[in-house]
């Protein structure tokens, strides 16, 4: 298993604006990598660079052991699926699927064979002779995926393919893309701003911000051990609770307001004594109880209670700080209730306030 895609020192400037900064990324063969980040973080730009649709300023791009930095998009051995489907409106579905193959001068019997195979995999056989205008959103996106499929390439690039679909279709197609990946075993690079898509689909997630990859790791690792404050705040909904304070006693405890939180069992580096540190705890790693529990805890007052159906979110105030806790529906509490919040330090993250890095 070698590297399918290698990005080496990739830099891209638009005029004086630096969009991608000295980026390195290796994607294993058959791996599903998701580029995740807020708008304008450069994730789609990176994908366009991989596809050859944007000329890069510096660096190299290798695909399947070939330096494709200066190659045309069609010569790179990639298939691409766009957010707006980008189907050719004047052609039938069959025409859309065969357009690239005809450009590549693939013989007609081979074209027919590949279209038949793609249509079977995506279950669009009955649609082959329709125009895109006569298809629903989900069907269009299937055809768009089919257009990448018939090219018989090793690398699939997805540019927010599900963003234009409604919630139900989105989750259906998400599962279908996962199934497709299991079935075909292609390398896939997938751009999205939806963390649910990222967490469910990815073998590895590259969280990006400001043209830089902040963390590249498996979904669980990213979720449990975010490498910095940005990743910690970006992944997870509702976001991680951040308790600012300072560490004392050689790093054995964090002082938050007038509360002392014992850091025993923290899963990370040596804490040391720091004037400023931030303890991050996810809403599901906090327990609510009427009396102070055995482990580290802080007192708080319930403000708002949001019922989500499956579970419930409690918004509380601990001193001046807002804190969100995910509780079972039966654990709902009326506003004004005074409680103690038990913190699961083993699953928490501690950040240095100045460097914003995880300790």
């Amino acid at each position, binding site marked *: 298993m070698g590297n399918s895609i290698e990005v080496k020192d990739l830099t891209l400037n638009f005029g004086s604006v630096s969009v991608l900064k000295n980026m390195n990324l290796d994607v294993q063969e058959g791996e599903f990598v998701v580029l995740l980040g807020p708008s304008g973080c450069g994730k789609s730009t990176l994908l*366009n660079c991989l*596809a*050859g*649709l944007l000329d890069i300023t510096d660096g190299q791009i290798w695909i399947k052991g070939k330096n494709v930095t200066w190659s*045309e*998009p*069609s010569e790179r051995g*990639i*298939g*691409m699926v*766009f*957010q*707006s489907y*980008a*189907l*050719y*409106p*004047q052609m039938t579905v069959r025409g859309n699927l065969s*357009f*690239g193959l005809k*450009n*590549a001068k693939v013989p007609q019997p081979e074209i027919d064979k590949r279209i038949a195979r793609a249509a079977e995999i995506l279950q669009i056989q009955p649609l082959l002779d329709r125009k895109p205008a006569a298809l629903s959103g989900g069907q269009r996106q299937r055809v768009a995926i089919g*257009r990448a499929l018939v*090219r018989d390439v090793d690398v699939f690039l997805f*540019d927010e393919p599900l963003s234009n679909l409604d919630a139900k279709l989105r989750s259906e197609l998400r599962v279908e893309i996962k199934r497709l990946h299991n079935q075909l075993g292609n390398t896939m690079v997938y751009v999205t701003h939806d963390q649910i898509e990222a967490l469910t689909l990815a073998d590895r997630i590259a969280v990006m911000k400001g043209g830089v990859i902040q963390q590249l790791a498996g979904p669980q690792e990213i979720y449990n051990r975010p490498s910095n404050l940005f990743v910690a705040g970006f992944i997870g909904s509702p976001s991680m609770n951040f308790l600012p304070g300072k560490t004392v006693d050689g790093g054995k405890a964090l002082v938050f307001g007038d509360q002392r939180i014992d850091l025993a069992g923290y899963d990370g580096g040596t804490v040391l004594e720091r004037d400023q540190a931030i303890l991050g705890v996810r809403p599901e790693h906090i327990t609510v109880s009427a009396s102070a529990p055995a482990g580290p805890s802080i007192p708080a007052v319930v403000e708002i209670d949001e019922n989500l159906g499956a579970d419930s979110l409690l918004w509380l105030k601990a001193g001046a700080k807002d804190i969100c806790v995910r509780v079972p529906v039966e654990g709902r509490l009326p506003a004004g209730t005074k409680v103690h919040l038990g913190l699961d330090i083993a699953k928490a993250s501690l950040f240095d306030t100045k460097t914003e890095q995880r300790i």
Partner: protein
Amino acid sequence: MADASMSGSLAMTGPRGAKPKRALNPRNIMLYGILLLVCLYYILPLWVMIMTSLKGMPEVRLGNIFAPPVEITFEPWVKAWATACTGLNCDGLSRGFWNSVIITVPSVILSIIIASVNGYALINWKFKGSEVFFTILIFGSFIPYQIMLYPIVILLREAGLYGTLWGLVLVHTIFGMPILTLLFRNYFSSIPEELFKAARVDGAGFWGIYFRIMLPMSLPIFVVALILQVTGIWNDFLFGVVYTKPDLYPMTVQLNNIVNSVQGVKEYNVNMAATLLTGMVPLVVYFVSGKLFVRGIAAGAVKG
């Protein structure tokens, strides 16, 4: 059950269904009255022209310009087309008509081809300085033609094209470029960029994308360009009179010469017929493609 049917029958006694509309309410009378007046105002000159052109000279002299002809004659039309005199030539408008055709057809085709490729390249294949190039091109459309008349005479003379139809074709093609390029560029910019990207991933090149992706989606804007150019070039007088010689005068110049030639009596009926004949081509183009025209204008206006 009983309650439901009770309330149901009660509801049926009141108003139901579409609200009736009175055709002759004050608003409609005002609206259509004014529209009718405006229509009359615009149709009147055309009426006078058609009626006059169908009258003989004795009837024209009676002076009832609004009255329909007592005795319909097509002689003025025939004369305007075939035998009206301008200076020494006495073959009417027909010569000018064919000159205009020979000027208009290549000018329209050439300018549309070049401008559409320009617009396509400026949007989808941005090159270093493409914005500057576009700005300069657009700047050209703000300069009054009259300023450039004489310099172009010199340029054409140096190129050996002065006084030829091809010289005039060249001038029309160049002067159509700014507005047409703008038109095409804006239209192509409304075509999603991802479509262009998808085609590139599919291995289509510059011309492949232009002919197989862009052209089939751009019929409306081509119709708009066609109408703009046909009417613009057909109706042109200034370039025609400056850059050609009497043998090659386009129809508009020929018309002017017929109407303004002062020898003997002014034949109003022939003049009217000649004017109508000259205006026929743009009129036909408008009527044939009117629907596409409106759609294309709107389509081009959405973005850009």
